[in-house]
């Protein structure tokens, strides 16, 4: 026996030594994993995009601006008969008492404040502080538009432990790990309790994991349920507790824990959960809300307050009962919170409606904000998008295209990749802010943005540039006035590729026509002649000055829009006209703020005068004529009234249908067609104009604000035929 032992001593010793080495290596490797994850960048935080803020003011049409919807999306809760706390409001017939939450931002930050709104019909008649002091204008916090996710599609907003309400930590400890402050990562009493409960139930009903083990499981390990993984989890939990302080572990847990699903994305951490479920910062959570978040940790989807409100309420009350029993809350708070109904924020608008905008914004950000930065760094990007207009644009395009297919069965295609397409972009002409952008029918099917990335023949929407080039010059130098006449007689131009002989849409010639009529009826021949008269290089120069950046072939047919341009460029060029000849720089965002609240990037308002104000006004007047008497006159039938100007466009073989138009405060370009060259068989007035009108009616309420005013010194006169002769205005051809 002794001999055997002596004989085995060496192999046993070697085995023990090898096991020791293996264990040591294993522990070192686990420890390195723990340290690397904890001390490197711990979390991937997707950057979020926020809309332009809504502004409250006396006179606001609260119904059209969807004040109730905005408050719901921001997570404001309606209360009755109590003084509203921050994030709450009382809507009492003709009076709204609103307690705004504080909003953190380096320049837009607002303290929490109380407001009162008096309502009469759909208008806000007074906006005051609670002591009756009138307030002129109060911005609300911006609304979330969307997030830039990584491939794991995790939504997360980081929260610091010191910023979280103590009630949230208490609620989580009460239900998930009440001995967290004292154990060393593993809680034998909890494990024993869970074992007994599971034996009694005949299956797994209760977990024995501590918060630290849950963190380790989510942080480092694959979601498999094996004994070896359990062992690894326990050892890593001990290592984590050995290396780090309890507050650091707790903070990591609160930012890592999975708290439900929003479409295809996973919600992680209390910061993001507070936004999702209550539309507020985690710091502003109330006791009942803290209890609800703690309640859903165990099984966020099975206990979802949206899908299973009864189950969620029952478990929330269990958390409150535990908190009370463990002495974490006093009896009155417990009773009050238990009596509260389950109130969660309205689900935020479907980001699908803004996905083309989000993609365009990503492209406009400077290169150093690559997708790696956007999905990891938790930036806040303050976008120019007006969420109400964006939703209206998405609806107008979607319904408009469906309507066209319904009325014209020949343009319907079953294959989603070959379907009729369209796009809509809306800008504020004075500031160049992109207010709404829908680059196609369905971002899920095609991410190609037809407003920005596509180059399509411009057709007749290009014609105003010819008239502007002619208006810039004196009649004696080949220019025109609005009282001039043009010839719409047959024209032949010799070009290197042969004779070019333009024809009109109706295949007729109209002889001598006034300038206004030539544009209002979109006459090709008269416009081509004017292009020749003023010089194609001048036409191209005007187009470039107004904002067209695509290459422009300086050929005679350029006058009729023989150039491939993007709808965004077209919108910008028309914005320059709408803005009195001042070209704005197009912007999709104005600020990028990092996770620490520092402004990293700022795009300021920028503009440049590129056209004489008088010429811009005359061009606007011509385009008003198109709406009043010309190819755009059907707009009135859509219930739009006020200052409107625009131009239809239809290209060869009716492949592209355009409408680009503006009010004094909004420029909108709509393009309709197929991605592959195919005839649409519809004009701009038939295909694009209805979508434009539908959107502008929704945006303006039907009555357009403002008017097109002439510059100082410009007068409008009625001129008869004899006056023209006397004034020598009949020239021009």
């Amino acid at each position, binding site marked *: 026996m002794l001999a055997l032992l002596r004989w085995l001593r060496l192999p046993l010793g070697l085995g023990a030594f090898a096991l020791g080495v293996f264990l040591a290596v294993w522990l070192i490797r686990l420890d390195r994993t723990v340290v690397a994850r904890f001390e490197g960048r711990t979390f991937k935080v997707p950057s979020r995009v926020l809309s332009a803020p809504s502004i409250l*003011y006396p006179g*606001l049409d609260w119904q059209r601006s969807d004040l109730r919807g905005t408050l719901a999306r921001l997570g404001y809760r309606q209360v009755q008969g109590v003084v509203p706390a921050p994030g709450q409001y009382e809507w009492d017939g003709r009076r709204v008492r609103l307690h705004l939450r504080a909003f953190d931002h380096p320049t837009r930050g607002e303290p929490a404040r109380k407001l009162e709104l008096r309502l009469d019909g759909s208008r806000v008649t007074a906006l005051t502080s609670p002591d009756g002091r009138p307030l*002129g204008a109060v911005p609300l916090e911006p609304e979330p538009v969307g997030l830039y996710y990584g491939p794991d599609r995790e939504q997360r907003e980081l929260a610091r432990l010191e910023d979280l309400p103590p009630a949230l930590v208490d609620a989580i400890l009460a239900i998930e790990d009440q001995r967290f402050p004292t154990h060393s990562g593993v809680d034998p009493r909890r494990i024993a309790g869970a074992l007994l409960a599971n034996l009694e139930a005949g299956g797994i009903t209760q977990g024995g994991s501590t918060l630290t083990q849950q963190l380790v499981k989510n942080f480092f390990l694959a979601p498999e349920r094996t004994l070896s993984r359990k062992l690894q989890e326990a050892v890593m939990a001990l290592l984590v507790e050995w290396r780090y302080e309890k507050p650091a572990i707790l903070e990591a847990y609160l930012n890592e824990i999975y708290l439900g699903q929003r479409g295809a994305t996973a919600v992680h951490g209390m910061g993001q959960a507070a936004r999702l479920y209550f539309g507020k910062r985690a710091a502003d959570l109330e006791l009942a809300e803290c209890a609800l978040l703690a309640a859903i940790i165990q099984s966020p989807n099975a206990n979802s307050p949206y899908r299973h409100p009864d189950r969620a309420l029952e478990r929330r009350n269990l958390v409150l009962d535990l908190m009370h029993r463990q002495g974490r809350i006093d009896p009155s708070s417990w009773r009050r919170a238990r009596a509260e109904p389950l109130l969660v924020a309205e689900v935020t608008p479907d980001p699908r409606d803004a996905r083309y905008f989000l993609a365009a914004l990503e492209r406009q950000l400077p290169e150093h904000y690559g997708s790696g930065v956007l999905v990891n760094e938790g930036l806040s990007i303050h976008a120019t998008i007006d969420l109400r207009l964006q939703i209206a644009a998405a609806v107008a395009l979607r319904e408009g295209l469906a309507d066209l297919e319904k009325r014209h069965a020949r343009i319907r295609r079953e294959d989603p990749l070959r379907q009729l397409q369209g796009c809509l972009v809306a800008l504020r002409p004075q500031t160049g802010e992109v207010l709404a952008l829908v680059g196609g029918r369905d971002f899920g099917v095609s991410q190609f943005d037809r407003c920005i990335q596509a180059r399509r023949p411009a057709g007749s929407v290009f014609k105003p540039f010819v008239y502007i080039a002619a208006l810039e010059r004196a009649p004696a130098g080949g220019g025109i006035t609005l009282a001039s006449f043009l010839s719409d007689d047959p024209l032949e131009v010799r070009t290197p590729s042969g004779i070019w002989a333009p024809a009109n849409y109706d295949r007729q010639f109209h002889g001598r026509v006034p300038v206004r009529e030539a544009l209002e009826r979109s006459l090709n021949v008269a416009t081509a002649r004017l292009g020749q008269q003023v010089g194609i290089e001048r036409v191209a120069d005007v187009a470039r000055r107004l904002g067209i950046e695509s290459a422009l072939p300086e050929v005679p047919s350029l006058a009729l829009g023989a150039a491939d341009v993007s709808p965004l460029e077209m919108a910008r060029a028309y914005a320059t006209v709408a803005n009195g000849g001042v070209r704005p720089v197009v912007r999709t965002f104005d600020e990028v703020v990092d996770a620490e609240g520092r402004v990293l990037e700022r795009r300021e308002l920028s503009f440049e005068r590129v056209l004489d104000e008088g010429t811009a006004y005359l061009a606007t007047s011509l385009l008003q004529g198109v709406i009043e008497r010309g190819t755009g006159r059907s707009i009135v039938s859509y219930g739009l009234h006020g200052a409107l100007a625009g131009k239809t466009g239809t290209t060869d073989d009716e492949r592209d249908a355009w409408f680009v138009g503006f009010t004094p405060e909004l420029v909108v370009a709509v393009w309709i067609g197929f991605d592959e060259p195919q005839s649409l068989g519809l004009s701009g007035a038939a295909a694009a104009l209805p979508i434009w009108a539908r959107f502008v009616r929704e945006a303006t309420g039907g009555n357009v*604000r403002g008017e097109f005013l002439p510059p100082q010194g410009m007068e409008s006169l009625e001129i008869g035929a004899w006056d023209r002769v006397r004034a020598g205005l009949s020239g021009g051809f």
Partner: protein
Amino acid sequence: MSSCLIDRIALLLLLLAPAGMLACRSFPGVPGPTRDEAVTLEEVMDRGDDQRRASNHLVDQGLEADQLADAGRALDRYELALQLDPGNPWVYLALARHELDRHEPRRALASLDRCRTLLERRGEISPRVETHLIGLRGSALAALGRDAEARPLLAEARRRAPSVWDDGRLAAEELR
């Protein structure tokens, strides 16, 4: 003293008063009337429709932020004011002043051009606002080193509103 003599003295005083006022204005060091020929935002605050008035309030908040040297917040307020009323000339006037504070004279000139255009189009241009347009243009040109063009403009602004333009600049509180 006969009533006839009193009447003559009164008449003389009446005749001399305007001349005296003019003399005071033309002598340096003699303070002229406060804000005699310079507009303030307060005067126009309640003009226009609901959106214009609300926009003016945001301009005022921007000027207040400028007064407290919070340039970021001021710019933010001016942009919000344009969001509500993109054709509000007072935003551009305040912006031009703000841009000069930030040593951006070219931007300030562009903002002044916008302001003038919008005021002229609506027939709202007045000698009182002209003072600031002239003075700010002078300041911008001076900042660009175009002193020969700047000097007469600044002198004119000073002549029109010495209490505001004596130091050759327009402070945020002076525009409020």
